[in-house]
């Protein structure tokens, strides 16, 4: 096995171990809770029978490690248990909503990533010009804004005043791709605005960092044009941090999606998670939380591996 394969395998293994630790976290949390979970949820007025029934349903009458193993063996077979609120299979609840969330996140990512990288490159190329400064202030402001502020602002302008897009992203009631893209444009745009700023700033920083290297000065002294210096000399060497930033922001999209879905009543996983937390529907919270955490961890591992691959020194070793 080469050094590279070992490196990648160890990262993947670490990701899987983390995922197990996270999945156990909720069981540990329930264990640490003062008193009994059933008592807490059902309140003081609950009768002994309802409490016993609820405990049996959640498996609270079994020791925690058995409960965890039981749940885990179900998950491996695609069985996430039943929702406490709607009595439906969690797996069935997840499937359509998962597709919706993925659609929204992908929609935003496909637009945001290229724009952010190009803007970052331009800001680095035209450093300290008016373009760079206004991009910087714009980015700083966009990072500081809560997603729901951006979302409601867009609703006010584009759907109330101009009437171009619907206020609610009803993706279930459209059947064409064009219709779906139109219905979900505002939530996608919100996500794009939120992630673009951060990606742009980091891309700019990564490029400027590389531009300080001696070989860049050499290239300039040779008379290489500025755009060529940035594209051929700086960009390949700044690739690792840029890939990292893109992956981190894709991971961030997964989180941002929660708030945006609630604003637009979009039938996705985020909305499901928030509803489940409010009604304390544990099987659903556990499954959705695990999915979000898994995607986040996976993207981080992917970023690690890609930045190793993009660096010949790490790729070949010494």
């Amino acid at each position: 096995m080469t050094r590279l394969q070992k490196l990648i395998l160890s990262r993947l293994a670490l990701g899987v171990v983390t995922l197990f630790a996270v999945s156990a976290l909720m069981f540990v949390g329930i264990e640490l809770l003062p008193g009994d979970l059933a008592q807490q949820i059902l309140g003081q007025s609950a009768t002994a029978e309802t409490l016993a029934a609820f405990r049996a349903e959640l498996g609270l009458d079994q020791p925690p490690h058995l409960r965890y193993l039981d749940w885990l063996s179900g998950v491996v077979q695609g069985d996430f248990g039943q929702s406490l609120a709607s009595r439906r299979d969690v797996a069935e609840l997840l499937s359509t909503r998962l597709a919706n969330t993925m659609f929204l996140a992908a929609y935003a990512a496909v637009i945001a990533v290229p724009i952010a990288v190009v803007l970052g490159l331009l800001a680095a190329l035209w450093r300290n010009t008016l373009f760079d400064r206004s991009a910087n202030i714009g980015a700083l402001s966009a990072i500081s804004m809560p997603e729901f502020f951006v979302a409601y602002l867009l609703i006010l302008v584009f759907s109330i005043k101009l009437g171009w897009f619907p206020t609610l992203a009803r993706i279930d009631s459209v059947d064409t791709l064009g219709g779906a893209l139109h219905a979900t444009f505002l939530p996608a745009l919100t996500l794009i605005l939120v992630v673009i700023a951060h990606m742009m700033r980091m891309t700019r920083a990564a490029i400027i960092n590389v531009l300080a290297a001696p070989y860049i000065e050499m290239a300039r002294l040779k008379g290489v044009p500025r755009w060529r210096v940035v594209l051929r000399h700086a960009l390949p060497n700044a690739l690792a941090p840029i890939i990292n930033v893109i992956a981190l922001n894709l991971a961030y999209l997964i989180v941002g999606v929660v708030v945006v879905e609630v604003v637009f009543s979009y039938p996705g996983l985020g909305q499901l998670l928030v509803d489940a937390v409010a009604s304390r529907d544990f099987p659903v919270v556990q499954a959705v939380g695990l999915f979000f955490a898994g995607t986040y961890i996976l993207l981080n591992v992917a970023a690690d591996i890609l930045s190793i691959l993009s660096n010949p020194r790490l790729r070949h070793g010494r």
Partner: protein
Amino acid sequence: MTLLRTAPPTAIFGLLVLAATLLIGLFAPLVAPYGETEIVGAEYLPWSAEHPLGTDNLGRDMLSRMIFGARNTVGLALLTTGIAFSVGAALGMFAALKGGWVDQLMSRAVDVLMAVPPLILALMLLAIIGPSIPNMVGVIAVIYLAPVFRLSRAAAMNVVALDFIGAARLRGEGTVWLLRREILPNISSTLVAEAGLRFCFVFLFIAALSFLGIGIQPPTADWGSMVKENATLITFGDVTPLIPAGAIALLTVSINFIVDWMLHRASGLKS
């Protein structure tokens, strides 16, 4: 004063907004025309002389709730950041000083905390312990303790390797002395710069949780839940629900401007 004169306009703007918010929050009962939860008229009254920002979904005065909201939202964010910082920094320095399995155990626990997106982790934890203000503060403090722990551990590692720590140890100083008198003064500037940034995250985080209905609970006035409560007005083209959301954005932008300036000064960059 010379410090202020060299400040860029963005930083001065930030300082002004921050000072105004803190003053309003501090003297909320004196400034606000009505009580925090007092019902003063019909629901969704338009802007008028009596109610400069109209009334909310239950007929409470919007402006008064904005003012009390400044106190609650900013106050809780300060409290949470304070807890996360004191506990996180103490644990981080302790881990760096002790090393060995203590360090390993704490660092791996922090790795797990940081491997999950904060919002998802908070939602999962709050589902277990139930949404309430003390629970929310506790959960967010635990989540944001992780990055503070990492930073202070890394900074303290450099200090622990120096000779004066060895000398203090040979003198027979205890752990608490080493942490407070030898390590803390040497890493405090790093921690202070980080605190401003973290406060922004915590503040936005509390606002987002309250907006989702899982943070600060009604009838307590809070900017995040005020947006949620009055969101229907947007569909009628009314900008009122955007005011609390805008206040959140304005305060975060301001603090970011200040932090940006301080980082710039600290790193000694001129361009």
